[in-house]
């Protein structure tokens, strides 16, 4: 058996299709997550189903990890073409080869930076989400160019009338593709437990374990790292303020909030980094507060933290989330008062939202 024969078009096409599917799922779910976090006027993300974001973001990170063996295998297959002679045969050929730089460099950067981010390692000075987002456009654009350039070859190699499967190296190819599928499957097993709880025990490379952390629920940002929230959280002068376009401005103490009708909901914390875990949250529905303040049902509500800095000290609730009865200003987690790392005295928790938009240490709702 030799592997030399596998540096050829049919193997490249088949692995390329698998990689293209994985990258497309990554791009689509990543774009979706970006739209949810920075919604343009034409985009509205619903509050239901409650666990949808944990699925889309789980798909994003799992497909990213699984694409690592696919990408490396694909590059191995086509590696001899890097040295083809003459290097440039025509203008079109030159442009097509040039498009491989953003495709290969971008693809490698996407999986590498994504992995580093999941492990919360930042060996660079740029801001990961912004860089990862824009390089995704570069990479996916280069992928579209590449797919167009290779379309006829792919059709010839794997199309319904293709006779390529009848060639002499098909057994070697099957063995190679089977091995690659096994490697991709093993990669899946090692990481998927972040999202798929039954696999958590075998998830050797998951960055979280469900059931760990304060009150058995992991956090990304501790009170210590949020800077100065501890003193303000325990300040007896704490007030939750509801203001903006309201009929009546509200200023509520923690005791006022505790005296209001409480509602409980089992909701996931779903991080953009792919881990998620469910807990039972209890508190005051945002909708009740808006009603008490006389806000319109179509209002957009900015939820602000007393955390001083940080990009995620504020998040917006569109009408779908603001009116959902399970969108809570939570005071309790699994029956206990919130741990300071979970946002004591009050945090936002709502269905179908990225974890970074579940604002902690809330002090103000601004209606507009």
């Amino acid at each position: 058996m030799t592997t030399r024969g596998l540096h050829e078009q049919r193997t490249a096409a088949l692995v390329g299709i698998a990689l293209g599917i994985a990258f497309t799922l990554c791009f689509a779910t990543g774009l979706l997550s970006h739209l949810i976090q920075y919604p343009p006027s034409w985009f509205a993300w619903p509050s239901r189903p409650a666990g949808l974001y944990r699925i889309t973001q789980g798909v994003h990170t799992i497909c990213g990890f699984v694409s690592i063996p696919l990408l490396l295998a694909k590059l191995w297959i086509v590696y001899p073409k890097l040295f083809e002679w003459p290097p440039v045969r025509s203008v079109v050929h030159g442009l097509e080869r040039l498009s491989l730089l953003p495709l290969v460099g971008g693809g490698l950067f996407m999986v590498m930076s994504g992995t580093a981010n999941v492990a919360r390692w930042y060996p660079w000075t740029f801001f990961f989400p912004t860089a990862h987002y824009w390089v995704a456009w570069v990479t996916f654009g280069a992928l579209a160019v590449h797919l167009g350039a290779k379309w006829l070859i792919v059709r010839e190699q794997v199309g319904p009338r293709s006779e390529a499967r009848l060639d002499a190296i098909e057994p070697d190819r099957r063995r190679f593709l089977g091995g690659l599928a096994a490697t991709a499957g093993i990669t899946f097993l090692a990481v998927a437990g972040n999202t798929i709880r039954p696999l958590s025990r075998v998830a050797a490379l998951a960055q979280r374990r469900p059931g760990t952390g304060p009150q058995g629920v992991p956090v990304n940002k501790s009170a210590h790292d949020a800077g100065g929230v501890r003193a303000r959280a325990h300040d007896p002068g704490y007030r939750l303020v509801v203001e903006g376009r309201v009929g009546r401005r509200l200023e509520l103490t923690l005791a006022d909030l505790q005296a209001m009708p409480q509602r409980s909901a089992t909701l996931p914390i779903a991080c953009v980094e792919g881990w998620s875990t469910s807990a039972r949250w209890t508190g005051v529905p945002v909708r009740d507060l808006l009603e008490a303040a006389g806000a319109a049902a179509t209002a957009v509500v900015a939820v602000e933290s007393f955390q001083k800095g940080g990009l995620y000290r504020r998040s917006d609730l569109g009408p779908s989330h603001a009116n959902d009865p399970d969108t809570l200003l939570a005071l309790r987690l699994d029956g206990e008062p919130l741990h300071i790392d979970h946002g004591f005295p009050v945090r936002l928790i709502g269905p179908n939202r990225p974890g970074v938009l579940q604002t902690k240490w809330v002090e103000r709702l601004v209606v507009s």
Partner: protein
Amino acid sequence: MNRDARPAILGALVGVPMLAYGVWGVLADADRTHPFELARWVIGADLAHDLLLAPFVVAIGWCIGRVLPPFARSPVRWAAATSGVLALIAWPFVRGYGRNESVPSLLDRNYARGLLVYVGAVWLAAAAWAALRARATHHRRDSTTTADVDSTAA
């Protein structure tokens, strides 16, 4: 227009604007993306693969072909490649660069041990696969005619 050129033109019509939008975004958000450093990472990833990782993998594959008997080559190549992929992914976890004392739930597994268990299982599977192939080769030698052996060797 040449019919065969159509997919390439369509791909370029879709892809080039997306690519340009990405480059524009990197430059427009320069205070967050640090374009020169980012370009070094993207181009550096490509060069690190083409000049270091790929030649290394090719060399290992070639050595395996020289040293091992045919029945063991595929299993060992697969196990080596899979171990390499797992080790690359595991690197930042094993090193624990992202550990944070105030967030103990983060990176709270023994990743070195987990990696070793996975790599061990991969090599066990490869050993079993090699043993099956060795037996199959042996059987074929015993029971087939010379012509059959020639055709499988071709």
